[in-house]
């Protein structure tokens, strides 16, 4: 039989997260605890779940329009206006997607011609590079540095640009490092982006989870809104990962083309989730703030613990991850994480799962109760003692 598979997909490496997940699953040991998840530990606030249930009771089980419920798009635009002073047209500049992940995929597909270069700062979330490759793009990786607190600098960006560069992915607040980009950081890279006439795909899924002032979107920087696809969603802010709901806002001509792909590939985002999300945006601000404060306490606790143990850790101001260095132990991230799992039954994710420059670091999630974090930090402490 002839080879049935696409060379492109076969040549894409599976996610490094998957590999570690398999090791944990194979151990199948109830004693194993984890700081390895990339989703909130909170349940979706009850009033939001209740609205989902209500929509089912009312029989709202049909497709919505391709772009999503008009009411939801309007609430999203109200939210962006109220939080970030950004103005988008709910009719032409807003599309509801199946999680932020779909928006990443179809955004790339709408923008890229084969051979175009896409700049991807790493360490970063695992899907940008493979999704870019699937469109025929050439990914150009920028290795972010711990000494810059894993922010993207104008110099780093400038160096990566060639005449074929089309798009810059901007994943801040960042998974896995917890890094943020503040207004002056964004202004500096915006000058470069405008000068070279590039587009930006700004993945702001963790926008609500920052711990040093309010998040600033690159779309707020003068001249940037017309060259930015702003991606956000409900997973992290409202603890709604399983509802699979995100959105993208941007220039009308790009949203129009993305809507075509979405219409053919997906049809529309889940209807129940859309109704629940309307409630989240209307009445969920307090829930978000309460969760943010809880994360902030855990973040401070973890940073203190890592420093107390003697592990270098820059202070991250976003998302729910810390990214401590393990360089002084003379092991690779993979070895460290594997031994920590085998010897102390604690699962964490090696930094390399998010790009080669994650070598020497671990991603530690604090989407866990303080009690769980204490137990886990005790195990890390024990492990480090044996080194």
């Amino acid at each position, binding site marked *: 039989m002839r080879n049935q598979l696409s060379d492109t997909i076969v040549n894409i490496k599976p996610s490094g*997260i998957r590999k570690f*997940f398999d090791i944990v699953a194979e151990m199948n040991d109830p004693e194993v605890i984890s700081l*390895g*998840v990339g989703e909130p530990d909170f349940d979706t606030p009850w009033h939001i779940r209740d609205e989902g249930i209500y929509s089912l009771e009312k029989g709202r089980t049909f497709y919505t329009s391709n772009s999503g419920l008009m009411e939801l798009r309007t609430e999203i635009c109200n939210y962006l206006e109220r939080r970030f002073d950004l103005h988008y047209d709910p009719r032409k500049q807003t599309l509801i997607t199946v999680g932020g992940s779909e928006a990443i995929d179809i955004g790339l597909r709408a923008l890229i011609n084969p051979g175009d270069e896409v700049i991807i700062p790493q360490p970063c979330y695992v899907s940008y590079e493979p999704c870019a490759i699937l469109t025929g793009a050439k990914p150009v990786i920028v290795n972010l540095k711990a000494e810059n607190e894993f922010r993207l600098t104008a110099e780093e960006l400038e160096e990566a640009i060639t005449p074929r560069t089309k798009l810059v992915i901007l994943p801040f607040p960042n998974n896995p490092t917890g890094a943020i980009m503040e207004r002056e950081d964004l202004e500096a890279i915006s000058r470069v982006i405008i000068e070279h006439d590039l587009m930006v795909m700004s993945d702001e899924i963790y926008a609500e989870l920052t711990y040093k002032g309010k998040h600033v979107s690159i779309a707020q920087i003068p001249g940037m809104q017309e060259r930015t696809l702003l991606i956000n969603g409900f997973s992290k802010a409202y603890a709604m990962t399983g509802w699979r709901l995100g959105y993208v806002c941007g220039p009308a001509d790009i949203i129009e083309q993305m809507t075509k792909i979405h219409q053919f590939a997906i049809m529309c985002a889940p209807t129940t989730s859309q109704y629940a999300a309307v409630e989240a945006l209307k009445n969920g601000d307090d829930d978000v703030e309460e969760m943010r404060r809880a994360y902030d*306490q855990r973040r401070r*606790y973890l940073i*203190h613990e890592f420093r107390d143990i003697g592990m270098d850790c820059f202070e991250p101001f976003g998302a729910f991850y810390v990214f401590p260095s393990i360089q002084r132990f003379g092991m690779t991230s993979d070895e460290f994480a594997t031994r920590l799992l085998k010897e102390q039954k604690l*699962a964490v994710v090696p930094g390399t*799962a998010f790009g080669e420059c994650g070598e020497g670091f671990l991603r530690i999630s604090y989407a866990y109760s303080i009690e769980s974090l204490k137990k886990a930090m005790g195990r890390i402490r024990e492990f480090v003692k044996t080194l």
Partner: protein
Amino acid sequence: MDNIREAILTTIEKNSRIDLNELAIRLGTDEVSVANALESMESEGIICGYHTMIDWDKTSIDKVSALIEVRVTPQREEGFDRIAERIYNYPEVTSVYLISGGYDLLVSLEGKSLKEVSQFVSEKLSTLDTVISTATHFILKRYKDHGTIMNTRTEDGREKVSP
């Protein structure tokens, strides 16, 4: 109220046994500031006590709780305060609220048995001069108390590792 005081209150409201040093770390301040804030909030009467939530049903100790609606005649100059005081001074009374609506005072009560609670109502409460009527509701099951859901699940339903 400043942020640190508010943050202390919302944290210890859920866990009053928290170690001061840990609380300081979590709030991004130092232990002395936390201790000072606690002390001043105690003396200002903002913090009125540190209690423990107990599910007595899981022990061998018998407890019966009731909520009692009480209608009273308010007294000149004293309003409801004097009658409330006469009720709340009984140690078996665990709370007394003046409320709006169809009756005046909501009294919660704890006793060893139905008989004990009934006796209190008929002999002590109903016989007070200004009490017009009472309606006693025995608590059959406690689903949620002080913001805590009893018998709630604790397992983590998430995958152990995810992107």
